[in-house]
């Protein structure tokens, strides 16, 4: 029996106070056009709200966007909040206005991948696909 795989579920969220959501909405639409189900939380969310939503919705991946410069605090906070809620296995991807020197720091803090304004959409979607599939495989093994 061929089992048709159900669409990947991802959450796109904007933590913190910045209201520039063009990037987040662009990625949400691009992911939808690639067959993803995208739960969009809107702007100005706390890390706890994003993590709690991701857990409830049982998403494969969390994608965060930040253009305010607060990514070093906010992105790792989401990773920690997820962990506290039993979601350490959910990969977190981040994007936005992020200086090169911060990327390494964020990866060390548990972020799965970081994208900057120059990253092509295809690369971002590929990262979401890979991370989602890895999450599903990990889930199936448990």
């Amino acid at each position, binding site marked *: *029996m*061929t*089992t*048709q795989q*159900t*669409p990947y*579920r991802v959450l796109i969220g904007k933590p913190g106070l910045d209201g520039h959501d063009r990037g987040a909405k662009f990625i*949400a*639409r691009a*992911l*939808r*056009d*690639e*067959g*993803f*189900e*995208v*739960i*969009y*939380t*809107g702007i100005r*969310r706390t890390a*706890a*709200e994003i993590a*709690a*939503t991701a*857990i*409830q*919705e*049982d998403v494969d991946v969390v994608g965060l966007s930040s253009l305010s410069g607060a990514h070093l605090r906010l992105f790792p906070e989401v990773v920690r909040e997820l962990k506290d*809620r*039993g*979601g350490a296995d959910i990969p977190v991807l981040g994007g936005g206005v992020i200086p090169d020197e911060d990327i390494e720091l964020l990866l060390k803090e548990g972020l799965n991948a970081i994208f900057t304004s120059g990253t092509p959409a295809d690369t971002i979607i590929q990262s979401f696909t890979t991370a989602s599939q890895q999450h599903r495989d990990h889930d199936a093994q*448990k």
Partner: protein
Amino acid sequence: MTPKSNALLAGLKNHDPRAIGRAISAVENNTAEAAALLSALDRDLIDNVLVLGITGPPGAGKSTLTSSLIRRLREQKKRVGIIAVDPSSPISGGAILGDRIRMMEHALDPDVVVRSMATRGRLGGLCASAGAAVRIMAASGCEVILIETVGVGQSEMDIVRLADITLMVLAPGFGDDIQAMKAGLLEVADFLVVNKSDMAGAEALCMDMEQIFSAKEEESEIKRVLQTVATENMGISTLLDSVDRFAHYITANGIKEKRRDKALDAETIDWVIEMLRPKFIQTMTECSEKSDPRVRAQELINTFKLQ
């Protein structure tokens, strides 16, 4: 019972949000533990839950009204489940599920359980998953479950039939949209909520709807056309009180049970089709390819010895 379904079941009883999310995914993805899990759910909790369908055209204020209803239900200390349905793209199969944006004030409340679901382009298929999601939420202690969906397509109407009581949300200024909805509306909706009732045209819309609904009101003597301003929390208590009275009415005279039985029968058929679909698709190539689809379908059915 597999160890995995046992763990999920224990999680549901403990109100663990991760377990609720995973249990619904298990059903949506038709995994091995889904059946064991669903048969072990607490029947009493499922029987006693109140399921409200909230439907209406895009922009009428469904999500905002839902959020106001959640707020009021939480004041009453009730644990609430929400199933928010949005359409899938017919081209990519993807979806943007944005109903949560208006419900984020409840994001950190452990007694507000939200699940966004996409229609996934399957007539009936979503209905099946949503039905199971209702039972999973009920088994994890939700006392009221709200199903929110755009009520303009057949699949959405099917989902609404999962509800014990259906609220149709309208707003002034929709004009012809409302005219077009009247026929289906009469059959499906128990309540008509005129939202944004502080806007011009609300009174006229109410009068229009009251005329249509007057026959229904006589049945239970409960007012069925109500006005709200969801953004201001106006009219929400009155609406919920009326819904409560109506819930008692339909429970007492067996209407709720009849509606449930009908919905469960319909869901069973949906599951049959969902479960057979992949097998049918696989076997289709074995049937004569060039025959008329109607003829080919019969061949396919004969192959499966269904008749």
